[in-house]
């Protein structure tokens, strides 16, 4: 974990309410693993905002976020050239060593971004993941092309069926998966664990204070006792959660 000042180079709308921000200035020591997150200090706000890392290579940090509250709305209004105080490299990240031959990445809505960086790293390790991207409506779709451009096999699933497959992501899991990596709304994560028995790693969300293990603000009960989502998580093996 490092505290650093990064410069916004890009900040644009990807889908209704969903923005992608790029920040330059990460140094090589600040190696970031897929599934980790950053904490952004937003002007005029006291607590930092945790945002999952969508990509972090060549010194450029890519974040995709939804403008829902006051803080993220201010973020959406920031322009290239402005700077942000960033705590980078937070949390454990996904464990790539347990991918097996046929991992499936399952993302729902704004849970999708960390899977992009994960797909990139898996492909670089010689594993081609299949990717399931779930959205409520077709106009919410983002990053389908970006995943495809990496060389991953992408399936988009929408609840309204106006694009890709119709229904829930859990209805479109391939039969031969060796494990899954997931990030998305809690009901999706739980449905996923009910739908398959293969090993799985799930990224959780929780309201955080510090984001680096000091305040115990984001503790959850697990099969192995209390865990901090920001420190022992945000990624948990399904057995640890008992799901």
């Amino acid at each position, binding site marked *: *974990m490092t505290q650093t000042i990064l410069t916004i180079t890009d900040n644009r709308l990807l889908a209704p309410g969903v923005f992608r921000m790029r920040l330059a200035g990460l140094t090589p020591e600040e190696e970031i693993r897929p599934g980790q997150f950053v904490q952004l200090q937003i002007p005029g706000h*006291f607590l*930092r905002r945790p945002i999952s890392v969508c990509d972090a290579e060549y010194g450029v940090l890519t974040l995709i976020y939804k403008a829902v509250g006051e*803080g993220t709305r201010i973020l959406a209004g920031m322009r290239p050239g402005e700077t942000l105080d960033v705590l980078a490299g937070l949390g454990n990240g996904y464990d790539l060593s347990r991918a097996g031959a046929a991992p499936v990445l399952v993302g729902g809505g704004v849970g999708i971004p960390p899977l992009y960086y994960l797909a990139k790293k898996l492909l670089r390790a010689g594993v081609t993941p299949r990717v399931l991207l779930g959205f409520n409506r077709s106009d919410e779709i983002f990053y389908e092309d970006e995943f495809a451009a990496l060389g991953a096999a992408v399936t988009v699933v929408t609840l309204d069926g106006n694009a890709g497959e119709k229904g829930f992501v859990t209805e479109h899991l391939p039969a031969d998966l060796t494990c899954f990596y997931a990030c998305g709304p809690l009901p999706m994560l739980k449905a996923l664990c009910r739908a398959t028995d293969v090993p799985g790693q799930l990224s959780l969300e929780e*309201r955080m*204070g*510090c984001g680096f293990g*000091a*305040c115990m603000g984001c503790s959850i009960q697990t099969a192995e006792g209390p865990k901090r989502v920001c420190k022992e998580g945000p990624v948990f093996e399904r057995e640890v959660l008992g799901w």
Partner: protein
Amino acid sequence: MVNTSVDLCGIRLDNPVIPASGTFGYGYEFAEHYDINILGTFSFKGTTPEPRFGNPTPRIAECPGGMLNAVGLQNPGVERVISEELPKLRRVFHKPVMANISGFSVEDYVTSAARLDKEDCVGWLEINISCPNVHGGGMSFGTDPGTAAEVTRAVKAVTRKPVIVKLTPNVTDIVSIARACEEAGADGLSLINTLLGMRIDLKTRRPLLANTTGGLSGPAVFPIALRMVWQVSHAVGIPVIGLGGICSARDVLEMMMAGAVAVEVGTANLISPTACRDIILDLPRVMKEYGIESLEELK
């Protein structure tokens, strides 16, 4: 060269900066960022006799100039603190540390105090009679002079280490509580713990915190803390540690001018992990700016 050292109940601190309990764990998360031996000391996570998970989440809510927390004294219990946490703490911190103790009965405080009294690395016991986030204990001990004195006396009977009683600001007359603790034998006082606050989620129309209310901390509470430290330090003869919203070396000086002999820094650690280091490194420069040679001249 300015002199930043201060005396806290007979133990010399290199400087008056003490990370507050509950914002610094057992130190080792922060030791990844800087050598925490630069600190005066620190107060580790509040300890109870039994392990506690604390309150359900959400435990955190943002506020203007601060935050609410309702962690509810999550800790592994005094035995595991001693067997697991203190050995790790001693590897990264080599000065006397402050042990923070909480409870739901006088016996709870006595149990933890008696156990931690035996630990050489513990320099002071900080008795938290002011946690607003637990029910049937915590703060209720700190809102009445009688019970505050009772806890103080009971803890003093089982330890030879200096006992610092941590007071709540959620009272009409903090001076009466402070005096009661002094008369019961407290060696020092620390104030203020958090102010009871609340936020509501406009979407659900329900409290944001699972615990409904939480403790407000951060710069928002600084003027209230300063006033109480002023009142208490003018009313008692024992040392007062000032805390509540301190974020900068200037805040440290202001709190010491109000009468504090040392300060605790809490919420600032959560926003920037190097907050205490940055304050300590800035302190000599700011002291020079205001013509202060030694912090002890502010007494």
